[in-house]
């Protein structure tokens, strides 16, 4: 045998495989969440610097890596490769399932993140807990405040200081496989919960996240998505406990069972709805007429960021309208940036999953900081899960 054939997997190939492992599917998100394997990957990468690619033509020296904590299916992997090519910094991705999980990690300290993606209602908490830094906007030239729709960029500013810049916005509805409804179109949260107890028994998924699961149970009764009223929460709890035996799973990792046919319906975020609908047209994304959640995600920098410069470079890179447009095409979540929207195809800007009808949008509420940190809602979810 020639020497060449004796070579094990090449460094480049290994890096490709490692990156695929780090980014790929939803399934892995659950994996990482449950196990902290994401952290293990980060530790491994840090312990074996030889695995990291050498810098190619770095413009400025921002180090050889940047660590991003984000949501599943929320980026275009090709953009990360481009970033590495341009700066020499390799992007390590930690994927999370809920804002509570992210907050818990940062509160515990030593997260090691340089950039993360908090949702609108968490930012005041992060500021109050002194966990994120005021952004040095001179390092984010691509953030042009006037280009962003204030509805989806306001939450990044706390007491006049910009702590976070907008990434995407979206809605929380549900996705239903219409093959199993006999052609019937579902339109309300009431139908979501009622059909779960009857025709869809054993086929429905709800998020493992108090904010959305309790919020959408509250909508059954027409209460506010953000309610922390004990009587209203008691009604929601009664509904959840009654529905629990009929659920397929309580899990925010809903794409795999929906795709393989084990589950027929699930609470769902815009981009997952778009991704599922693109691959399986029978998957319909529904916003309950009663309302529900509208949200916006942001980029922020934790106080402890170990590769701070690289973190800023990554945010700036991802906010470049050309790069951001590629992100949208990959994940299917709308942006609030008019410059990016100019680069997107017309069909996408008219897509009813990304841009629902005005009367549906009007009924939606932004989540509130108090909703996330309410101890009673956390306990309610624990009772629901252990019932």
């Amino acid at each position, binding site marked *: 045998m020639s020497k060449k054939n004796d070579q094990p997997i090449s460094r480049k190939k290994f890096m490709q495989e490692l990156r695929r492992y780090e980014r790929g599917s939803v399934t892995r998100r659950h*994996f990482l969440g449950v*196990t902290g394997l994401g952290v293990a990957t980060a530790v491994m990468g840090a312990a074996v610097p030889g695995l990291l690619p050498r810098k190619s033509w770095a413009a400025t020296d921002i180090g050889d890596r940047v660590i991003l904590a984000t949501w599943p299916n929320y980026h275009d992997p090709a953009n990360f490769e481009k970033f590495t090519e341009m700066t020499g910094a390799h992007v390590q991705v930690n994927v999370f399932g809920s804002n*509570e999980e992210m907050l818990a990690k940062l*509160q515990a300290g030593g997260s090691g993140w340089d950039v993360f993606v908090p949702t609108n209602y968490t930012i005041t908490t992060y500021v109050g807990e002194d966990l994120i830094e005021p952004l040095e906007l001179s390092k984010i030239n691509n953030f042009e405040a006037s280009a962003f729709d204030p509805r989806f960029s306001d939450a990044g500013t706390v007491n006049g200081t910009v702590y976070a810049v907008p990434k995407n916005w979206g809605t929380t509805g549900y996705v239903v496989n219409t093959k199993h409804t006999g052609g019937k179109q579902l339109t309300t949260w009431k139908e979501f919960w009622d059909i779960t107890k009857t025709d869809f028994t054993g086929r429905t998924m709800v998020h493992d996240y108090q904010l959305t699961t309790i919020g959408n149970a509250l909508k059954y009764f027409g209460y506010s998505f953000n309610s922390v009223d004990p009587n209203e929460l008691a009604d929601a709890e009664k509904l959840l406990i009654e529905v629990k035996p009929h659920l397929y799973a309580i*899990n925010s990792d809903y794409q795999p069972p929906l795709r393989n046919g084990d589950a027929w319906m699930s609470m769902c975020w815009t981009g997952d709805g778009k991704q599922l609908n693109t691959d399986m047209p029978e998957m319909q994304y529904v916003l309950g007429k009663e309302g529900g959640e509208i949200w916006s995600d942001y980029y922020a920098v934790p106080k402890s960021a170990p590769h701070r410069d690289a973190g800023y470079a990554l945010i700036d890179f991802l906010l470049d309208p050309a790069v951001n447009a590629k992100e949208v095409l990959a994940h299917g979540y709308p942006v609030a940036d008019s410059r990016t929207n100019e680069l997107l195809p017309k069909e996408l800007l008219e897509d009813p999953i990304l841009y629902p009808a005005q009367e549906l949008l009007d009924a939606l509420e932004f989540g509130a900081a108090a909703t996330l*940190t309410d101890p009673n809602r956390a306990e309610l*979810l624990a009772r629901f*899960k*252990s019932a």
Partner: protein
Amino acid sequence: MYGSWANRLLLVPATVWLLVMLVLPLLVVIIFSFGERGTAGGYVPAFTLEQYANLSARFTAFKNTLLLAPTGTFLCLLVAYPLAYFLAVKVHPKWKTLLLVMIIVPFWTSILIRTYAWIFILGGQGLPKVLGFLGIEGVRLINTPTAVLIGIVYAYLPLMVFPVYVSLEKLDKRLLEAASDLGSSPIEAFRNVTLPLSIPGVATGCMLVFILLMGEFLIPALLGGGKVFFIGNALVDLFLQSRNWAYGSAVAATLVIIMLVTVSIYMKLVVRNQQ
């Protein structure tokens, strides 16, 4: 002599390790359990028994664990004993090493990945589909307590097989011959000789599996679809979701106490039976 400094030196690494990695963290847990949750989560120093007073809020999770851990242990034993007996007594010695290695081989892969594989085996496109071809329709396995038990037996089997195997392996075959000579049928010989002599192995195996099962969270999380809730899952949620460190510490301390009590009673029973 025991007292010589060289001998004491032997204990230093383990003592330091246990002090730093076990005793100190346990103290932190105990201190936290008397504290309070901050408004946004975390821990606020205090001295209150409120967290312990509220323990009943995790009653179901404790109950699920205290039901499923013994059930899982017992099922493990049911599957492991015949296998260990076969390996120790029936197998030709030249195959023994190979077969033992085959039991260990799965340990070379992470338990996480192996449990993940079970999601597909027990999911709608796996075993239920095969059963469908055989005419048994509508079987649901994934995300049920049954799925969790299957995962548990699979994962913990080797921990039960080895202690039982070792105790059966040491068994003096002449005792069985004597029993036979004295008129025992093979079944009587098994009941009166083999079984009693294998009890220490069974006891060790059961304890290993039971203690680990009391803290299990991965298998119920992956194969129970979030619907099968062990105390381990409650703890993960308290620390990694709702950030209630004080209450989480009280639940953890209670779990440790329950384990101490259960295991002490168990040890007493085992020791008494052997005398």
